[in-house]
């Protein structure tokens, strides 16, 4: 067991008891989770649920980025936002909900969305990045920062009853710019979604983060999981790096 990993209090051992029973996790895996830090952007139907499960799992430090105030149309899926917080900052609602769930987690909030001006600094605070943002400009900024800092990036998205997931390891797997060489035309940032759909892919993304931190299982690298919940088809599709990718091509 690594001597630099933080110790668990008796209260933490009690809180995480059931997940420490997971084969190959144990107390050491829980200490790895406590030592870990994760950036989640944004805190919508996907990102908020990722953050909720990472807080529940005892990830030591969460950096949470999301601009703006809670709107009525957030509430069908953004589980960290509450009706009594309408019109007030989303990150404050999220921090309050996460602290209610697990006061052991250190939370740093930024009331801003990711961009080329802040992505490097925010990604620099953490071990792993989770992209749950709707705009490709934000996602490209996050991808650029994660690749430059050689940090894993868990990519999750949904539309209607479809969802997709992949874990990017810079230099080893395709990066986001390999998959999308440019800002896709015809993209509308508002789209049909049930909270149960965004929450489903968010739960899987949280599992990916837990796997990366603890070393259990095999992360979804070099593949994209495409899920169609209308038909309940789950496809695990191979994906390839793009020759000459401007972001990761030199790695």
């Amino acid at each position: 067991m690594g001597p630099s990993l933080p110790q668990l209090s008796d209260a933490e051992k009690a809180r995480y008891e059931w997940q420490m029973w997971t084969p190959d996790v144990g107390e050491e895996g829980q200490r790895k989770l406590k030592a870990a830090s994760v950036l989640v952007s944004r805190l919508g139907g996907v990102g908020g649920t990722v953050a909720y499960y990472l807080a529940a799992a005892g990830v030591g430090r969460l950096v949470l980025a999301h601009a703006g105030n809670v709107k009525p149309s957030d509430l069908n899926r953004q589980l960290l936002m509450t009706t009594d917080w309408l019109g007030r900052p989303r990150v404050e609602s999220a921090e309050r909900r996460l602290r209610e769930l697990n006061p052991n987690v250190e939370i740093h909030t930024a009331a801003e969305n990711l961009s080329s001006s802040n992505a490097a600094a925010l990604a620099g605070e953490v071990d792993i990045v989770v992209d749950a943002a709707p705009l490709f400009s934000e996602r490209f900024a996050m991808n650029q920062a994660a690749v430059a800092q050689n940090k894993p990036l868990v990519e999750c998205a949904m539309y209607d009853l479809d969802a997709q997931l992949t874990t990017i390891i810079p230099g080893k797997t395709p990066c986001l710019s390999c998959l999308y060489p440019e800002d896709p035309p015809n993209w509308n940032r508002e789209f049909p979604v049930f909270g149960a759909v965004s929450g489903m892919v968010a739960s899987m993304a949280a599992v990916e983060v837990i796997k990366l931190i603890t070393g259990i299982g095999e992360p979804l690298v070099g593949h994209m999981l495409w899920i169609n919940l209308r038909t309940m088809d789950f496809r695990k599709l191979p994906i390839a790096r793009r020759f000459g990718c401007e972001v990761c091509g030199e790695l």
Partner: protein
Amino acid sequence: MKVTFQFEAQLRQVAGVNSFDVELPENVSLLTAIQHVSEEAGEALRERLLTAEKSVQPGIMLFVNELPVPSALTDNHRLDSGDVILLLPPISGG
């Protein structure tokens, strides 16, 4: 020869179907097949599939029999009878 097209997410919504079969000449390229489908489709789907230069829209991920085909190689990739062509449009979080 017959090939099968499968659309997901926005493409399925615009097309109104998830999957359909198309009769094409033997040894046709993937790009030609997509252009053929685009010509048969309405304007809304055609704009989603093709650029003004009639190449595949950037951001659409292409798979033939669940193996990826880079968009730059669609003109070189020859189809076989029975191939299943999957088109995944870009989607995001939120």
